[in-house]
């Protein structure tokens, strides 16, 4: 039997992609022509960067992006800590711990994030004396923590029980078992789904604009309202989000491939 050629000409793919773009642009121009939309892309760059007194200054959209980074970073650290703690508590012998974590997971996972953000901002925030930023971070961390805890748990229980038996028979404490044997292996396995959850966290931060935090989404809304450059602003915003999430997504695929080879 003759082997099929593995090599494919890249020109075919490039031609297909170019055709797709042409069709998309054509459809878009058709629809904007019908709306009588007047494209003004040249007005966008000043909302990304502008030159003030000979210095480059971030425009509204880039400022929003930086804020999105900030809130994503803080929430991610807290969500990881909360997720790990919840997973460990859920796998522990403590009856109360298991009940509490179960309750937390059910409540968080079965209500919309928007509702949680409002509830934390309007109800829990004032009770605890949290500011707007802290409330938003709390809502995002609670939400993502619940999903991350399930990822951690899945990674931990996916390990062969022989690993537990080996540490048990060597006399290792539960703490040492987790630190030296279980978590290092579990984290390797869950890195791909965990990175996926990071992407989801970054996307979900756009909802904090609801409580008037000036993240990328809110800045885009403000700029669009000020300038009536609705299409240009939202396209630019989408591209900015993509510029963060696509590289992460590619990294996930690379990780998945690498770990498939290792395990």
């Amino acid at each position, binding site marked *: 039997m003759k082997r099929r050629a593995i090599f494919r000409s890249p020109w075919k793919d490039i031609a297909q992609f170019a055709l797709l773009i042409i069709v998309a642009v054509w459809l878009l121009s058709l629809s904007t022509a019908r709306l009588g939309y007047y494209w003004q892309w040249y007005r966008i760059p000043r909302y990304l960067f502008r030159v003030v007194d000979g210095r480059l200054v971030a425009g509204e959209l880039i400022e929003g992006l930086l804020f999105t980074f900030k809130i994503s970073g803080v929430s991610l650290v807290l969500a990881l800590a909360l997720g790990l703690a919840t997973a460990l508590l859920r796998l522990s012998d403590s009856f109360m711990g298991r009940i509490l974590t179960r309750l937390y997971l059910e409540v968080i996972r079965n209500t919309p994030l928007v509702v949680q953000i409002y509830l934390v901002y309007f109800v829990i925030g004032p009770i605890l004396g949290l500011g707007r930023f802290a409330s938003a971070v709390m809502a995002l961390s609670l939400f993502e923590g619940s999903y991350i805890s399930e990822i951690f748990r899945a990674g931990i229980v996916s390990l*062969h029980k*022989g*690993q537990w*038996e*080996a540490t*048990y*028979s*060597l*006399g*290792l*404490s539960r703490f*040492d078992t987790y630190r*030296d*044997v279980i978590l*290092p*292996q579990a984290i*390797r396995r869950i890195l791909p789904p965990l990175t996926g959850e990071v992407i989801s966290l970054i996307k979900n931060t756009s909802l904090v604009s609801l409580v008037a935090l000036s993240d990328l989404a809110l800045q885009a809304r403000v700029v669009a309202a000020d300038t009536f450059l609705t299409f240009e602003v939202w396209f630019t915003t989408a591209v900015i989000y993509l510029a963060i999430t696509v590289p992460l997504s590619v990294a996930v695929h690379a990780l998945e491939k690498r770990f498939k080879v290792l395990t």
Partner: protein
Amino acid sequence: MNKTEYDYIIEIENVSKTFTGGVEAVRDFSAKIRRQQVVVIMGPSGSGKSTLLRCLNGLETPDNGAIVVDGIPLDDDKHHRLEIRKEVGMVFQSFNLFPHLTVLENVNLAQMRVRKKDKAAATQRSTELLQMVGIADKVNAYPAQLSGGQQQRVAIARALAMAPKVMLFDEPTSALDPEMINEVLDVMKVLARSGMTMVVVTHEMGFAREVSDWVIFMDGGQIVETGTPECIFTNPQEERTQRFLSQIL
């Protein structure tokens, strides 16, 4: 009585274990194992030998009966259990090495964490043990880079690193390719001759004949017959033992 002069290192009294689902794995089992004895437990699969062995270090908790290891009762007391876990080494059928650690790190881990040795002292002891089991040239390899026989020898070194008073072997050669069985058995023979107390669940008759002091033949969770290897292998009294031996010989 002074603990170190305690004659029997393991005492098993009327131990029973039924798994959820109603399978009675071990039924009213009693035995005493002396220091420096090598005891081989044989029997058909499902006869409860592995379950019994796993009860000896607390991996399984018996429903009834008592187990005393080196004078320490194996009960609900955490300190007792920890003490027994430290003093009883175990080698598994599936090796259970830590795949993310090198051979040396596998053997070092418990010495550093449980025995609180520093890295240099642990490494020195590990190197000696790995030399003994013939893996000295692979200390920086990862378990996946070793053959099954090599992995099992590392697992033996890892258990020995805790300087246990008793070593339990749960079918240590059952998962190995035939040509690798002997390299593991040879290490176990050296260990047996060095005076280590060993309880071995195995089908390896040659090993049992050569180094064991005592053979327990089990079926249905109970002792069918027990005696020296000569008695059991050349002159089995029970019909069930005869039938089993004729099948595996």
